[in-house]
């Protein structure tokens, strides 16, 4: 299978039904994408597929063939997303950090200059147990607002 991840093309041989999450973490060694539940409930595994935030634990790898995948490792390539990383760091939006990659990827799919309500709706699928979300809103507003 051919996958384009963070702008780079990869040819991999994995079972087509293998979860995209595992393909990224194991075959491509991109371990920044996390697993928190394996059933589409926590959002820790969020990546962008053609600009859309999806839970990579629910996506069979074959479905991602021919698409453009963005993971946390690719964020630094884009100035807008770099700003997001910087804001997460400066605002203390990442505490234990396990939700952070997924949270930032979901934030990437928000409309430009999102309102607080848009941020809340856009991040509703990403659980964070550490922050109470307050600093995450601050970071997203700071970077994208």
């Amino acid at each position, binding site marked *: 299978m051919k996958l384009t991840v963070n702008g780079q093309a990869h040819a991999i041989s994995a079972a087509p039904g293998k979860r995209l999450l595992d393909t990224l973490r194991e075959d491509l060694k991109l371990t920044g994408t996390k697993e928190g539940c394996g059933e589409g409930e926590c959002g820790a595994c969020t990546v962008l597929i053609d600009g859309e935030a999806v839970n990579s634990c629910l996506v069979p790898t074959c479905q991602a063939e021919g698409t453009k995948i963005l993971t*946390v490792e690719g964020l630094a390539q884009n100035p807008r997303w770099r700003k997001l990383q910087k804001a997460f760091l400066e605002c203390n939006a990442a505490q234990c950090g396990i939700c952070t990659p997924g949270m930032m990827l979901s934030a990437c799919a928000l409309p430009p200059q999102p309102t607080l309500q848009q941020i809340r709706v856009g991040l509703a699928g990403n659980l964070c147990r550490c922050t109470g979300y307050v600093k995450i809103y601050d970071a997203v507003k700071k970077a994208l607002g």
Partner: protein
Amino acid sequence: MSKVKNRRLKVVGKRVPRTEGADKVTGRARYIDDMQFDHMIYGATVRTTIPRGRIVSVERDTAFDWSGFTWVDHRDIPGKNIVAMIVEDQPFLAVDRVEHQTEPVALLAHADRARLAEGLKAVRITYQEEPPVLDFETATEVLKELSIARGDLAAGLALADKIIEGTYRTGHQEQLYIETNGMIALPGANGFPEGVTAYGSMQCPYYVVKALEKLFRLDRERIRVVQTTTGGGFGGKEEYPSIVAGHACLLARKAGVPVKMIYERHEDLIATTKRHPSIITWRAGVKSDGTLTAIDIDMRLDGGAYMTLSPVVLSRAAIHATGPYRTPSVRIRGRVMKTNTPPNGAFRGFGAPQSQFAAEVHMDRIAEVMGIDPIELRRRNLFQTGDTTATGQVLHDRVSADEVLDKALAKHRVAHRRSKKTKKLAGTGIAMFFHGSGFTGGGEVRLASRAGVELLPDGVRLLVGSTEIGQGTRTMLAQIVAESLELPYAFVKTIDPDTAQVPDSGPTVASRTCMIVGTILQRASAKLRIELGPYKSGDDFKKRAKALLKKRGTVVIIDQYEKPGEIEWNDETYQGDAYGAYAWGCNLADVEIDPLTYEARCTAFTSVIDIGRAIHPLLAEGQIEGGTLQGIGWALFEDVVMKNGVMQNANLTNYIIPTTLDAPHIAVEIVENPYPNGPFGAKGVGECPIDGPAAAIVNAIRDASGARLDAIPATPERIMKVLG
């Protein structure tokens, strides 16, 4: 230290970037599941499926292909089959008794995870079942009992114009760190092939060391434990990781290769520790002006099948049971009951959230019965500086209960604009709380924690076993050291706690790290300054450091906990200074209830807490915001449904924690009344934010709808039942 007080702080109180923050926002941070070792295989646990009985046999299906599998059961344990904790009652692997469902019986490992899962299914345990005890309210076996008494209770009650009683219940709560438990074990350690090494997600590396010492009958030199980046703990990774590490090490020793053991969410939910459910009965003697003349509290906690940390949870629950209120006579009796359910254990707050939930809902009840405004009632009874607590501790240091109340009332008005008129029932509730920092009573003396600094040519390195689990430990300790040395923050380097390199600074629990370990580091830094002699600038420091290192090779200064002279505690009578310092807090919650669905939502929340000094204001706020939302979750949604001694809703679809859509606007204000024995005045912050939210919300529900709940979570079913 007086010198430090008089100069302006340059690093403490500043919003420096987290030491490990850049790794976390780039995906470079390595959590345990991100690590690989050559020849690594995967491990899994065979668990019991009945709550109580005898194991008749454990059989492996003979038709199944067992090639490539490693099998471990209790016969493979070289040392003692006991998880080292307060008492010796819990086996690493069950021998013949079953005391709860999900109890580990055997371990399997295989290089292929799919085959491993098949292997698990090919193991049959047969039992001789016995009737289990599942309900702690009717249970009779007591794991631990405690009583605190001061003053003459009968006389106090006789002075009262009214005696007001109430009974309150709280359920299990799951810590729900987003990274599940996990370890990788390697055969061999520190050059000893017979040793064991464990890498993993944990709060207390030296707890794991102690557990492995006993399990393998090895001395400390032959054991190495390394904490990897940890995706949340909240107490859930205080004691349980010892079990995961023990299991993984047993497999690794037998297989002769590294073994990775990562719990899936379902397994983590059904098998690991949770917050102790509680039932607490209050009897309060009250004068007509609202003054408390006597408090009589009886509490029971559900310990589950083994003791784990229940005695200390009970102790913290009992000491905080009066809430921040004075009374001339008090009796607090507590018991932890044994049930045939998975053991309950450490969870942020450690019993204090349960007991202060009861206290604060009861305060509202007293206000109602006596016809006094709930805020006024609290004002008449709040601790003042110089008052005496239930354990006879005289509160010499400034008590800021009144101050946080005033500030919370003001903040709540300003921070939350009144929401537009809706069809919903709306109300506001209050809760006040206090929280002792550090281990209870003589605990810190027994721990005798050690921490220090190592001199480097261009700075210093922190040597602490305290763990970064998201709360900001590493950053905050580095700030304390930088400030103590009057060096820039960047001069202080940190490392992953690795027991081959760092001393035992005690567990990372009990809101103790900043206040206790921070103070030890402050002293070690002061000693280093003496060694170095005066320096005028960072460059000057480097020159002196290089010279000293050239002369001595290495310069490491490790210091140990010293009890502040004025703290006295008697374990026999349970009287004395229970904690060196207390945080004081006040919560206000706005709640709306949908009159059709009875769903309660928290719409606005205010938390004002005196934590002595915010070493890093953003990190401290983060602790308060996160702890608050965890408390709101416990109050409204988080419901562990148990049946036959095992969690039924063991997934994130059915065990609900708050999302962005459930989280209210949380306004936080930090009050800083310095604690003279804390580093730069700091007390603890980690736990106290979760003491108040549940009561504030239940009191707000009463205000909004008239529904008087005496149990949480406040689900629509519960509210509907009360409103009829």
